[in-house]
């Protein structure tokens, strides 16, 4: 059962992260089916190359209402109706989960639904957030409705846990599933639906025990759409392109965002960043518990210092990796700085006997 759940999760993750061109006829047929369920005729479809194009252009022949701005998409009339259709479907499907299915339902929530929700959050949401030009949370109900996580949950219940849905419930679930696997994000209005192609590049890394992924690419955009619009990411953090393409000391010095600075420095490597930036050495001391290695404390910027330490164990190439840890600026003793990282005083940290 666990294996089956993981297989279904991987299947849906693959669909969510797909970089294949959209299956336009399938997407249009499924969305038209959903329009029919809320009592509307099939819309005209306006395909665009990326979410940013979708949010910054208005399809020809559409008069938008003043309230239909990109940042309020979840409150547009149709997204609200579709989200409510989806919630009713979920309630009905939950009611089909009988007493004997409950432990499997829990397992599927844990092993399928929640990892997929996290993976979507860590991957597809980032370009969407970038397209909305917002680092803040925006109203995301409509995008939650389009998330594969709930679809995969009920798909797993019917395929792997033996839960029976009515033909009508299956038909609606199939429509949502078909939309999710055929194209990108979509923005429905009466008479017209804007729908985005999928990205042509999507680079992720695994970041959790249940196959959760996040965006990361050290040498190229993590997400790129066919129109050239792209997003860069370092281990799940969205960063400006220079962090990936040209992470220079000067740019790091000008960057106001501490997270972005950290990503850029990690990309250069702490030891060479300290060299290149010519950081002033405040003090150094032998690392207790790590014979032959030194702890070196440098001035970094206002109220922050960096402790350059050496790994206790060797890498495959026989070298010991050096790494930097940022510490509060009031610390001027490397031992006290190393202790601070573990919530210890200098005296306590100096008791360290072994580091591996």
């Amino acid at each position, binding site marked *: 059962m666990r294996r089956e759940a993981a297989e279904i999760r991987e299947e849906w993750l693959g669909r969510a992260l797909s970089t294949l061109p959209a299956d336009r006829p399938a997407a249009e047929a499924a969305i038209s089916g959903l329009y029919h369920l809320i009592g509307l005729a099939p819309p005209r479809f306006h395909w665009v190359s990326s979410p940013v194009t979708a949010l910054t252009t208005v399809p020809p022949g559409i008069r938008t209402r003043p309230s239909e701005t990109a940042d309020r998409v979840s409150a547009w009339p149709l997204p609200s109706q579709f989200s409510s259709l989806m919630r009713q479907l979920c309630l009905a499907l939950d009611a089909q989960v009988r007493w004997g299915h409950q432990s499997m339902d829990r397992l599927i929530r844990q092993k399928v639904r929640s990892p997929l929700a996290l993976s979507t959050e860590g991957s597809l949401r980032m370009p969407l957030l970038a397209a909305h030009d917002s680092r803040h949370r925006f109203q995301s109900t409509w995008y939650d409705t389009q998330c594969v996580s709930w679809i995969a949950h009920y798909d797993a219940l019917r395929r792997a846990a033996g839960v029976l849905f009515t033909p009508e419930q299956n038909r609606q679930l199939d429509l949502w599933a078909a939309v999710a696997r055929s194209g990108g994000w979509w923005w429905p209005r009466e008479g017209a639906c804007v729908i985005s192609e999928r990205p042509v590049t999507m680079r992720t890394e*695994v*970041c959790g025990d249940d196959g959760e992924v996040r965006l990361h690419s050290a040498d190229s955009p993590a997400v790129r759409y066919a129109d050239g619009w792209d997003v860069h990411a370092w281990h799940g953090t969205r960063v400006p392109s220079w962090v990936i393409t040209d992470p220079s000391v000067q740019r790091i010095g000008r960057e106001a965002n*501490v997270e972005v600075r950290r990503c850029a420095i990690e990309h250069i490597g702490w030891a060479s960043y300290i060299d290149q930036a010519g950081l002033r050495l405040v003090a150094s001391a032998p690392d207790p518990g790590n014979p032959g290695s030194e702890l070196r404390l440098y001035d970094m910027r206002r109220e922050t210092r960096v402790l350059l330490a050496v790994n206790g*164990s060797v890498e495959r190439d026989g070298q010991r990796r050096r790494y930097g*840890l940022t510490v509060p600026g009031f610390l001027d003793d490397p031992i006290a700085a190393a202790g601070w990282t*573990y919530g210890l005083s200098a005296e306590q940290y100096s008791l*360290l*006997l*072994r580091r*591996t």
Partner: protein
Amino acid sequence: MTVTLASLSQQTGLAVLDHLERSASIPVVHGLQAQGDLIVIPLPVIASSVKVWPDSHWKDVPGEGVELLRGAAGGNPHTLVADPGTCRWTTHVLDSDQLAIGVFETSAVAYLLHPEHGATGCPPGTYVIRRQREHEGQRARLVAD
């Protein structure tokens, strides 16, 4: 029996990287020791800042070990390993620095195992396991290597 990386790896089913010395006996250290971004501290050393809840739920550490923390990007786990029946642990811990993952209490040598960092032994006693933090802007950020 001498405990080595090879024997711990066999006991737990966890692989260790092949460039580490697998056959040497693992040192047992009477005091503070660090393994990458984790540190093991005898409870008496920091008893003033770390408390175990009085009604804590203690769990026995099984032969295959308990995963304490996993590195970033699906990285490698730090695992606490002990012979069954000799070691128990709890996460119901109050730490004024909010870095403690848990406390373990062992009546025989317990081991901390990591695929890249190797292993280290803790003699009988009670220990706090803490994570490592960094200073970022006005706040602290937990390290995950």
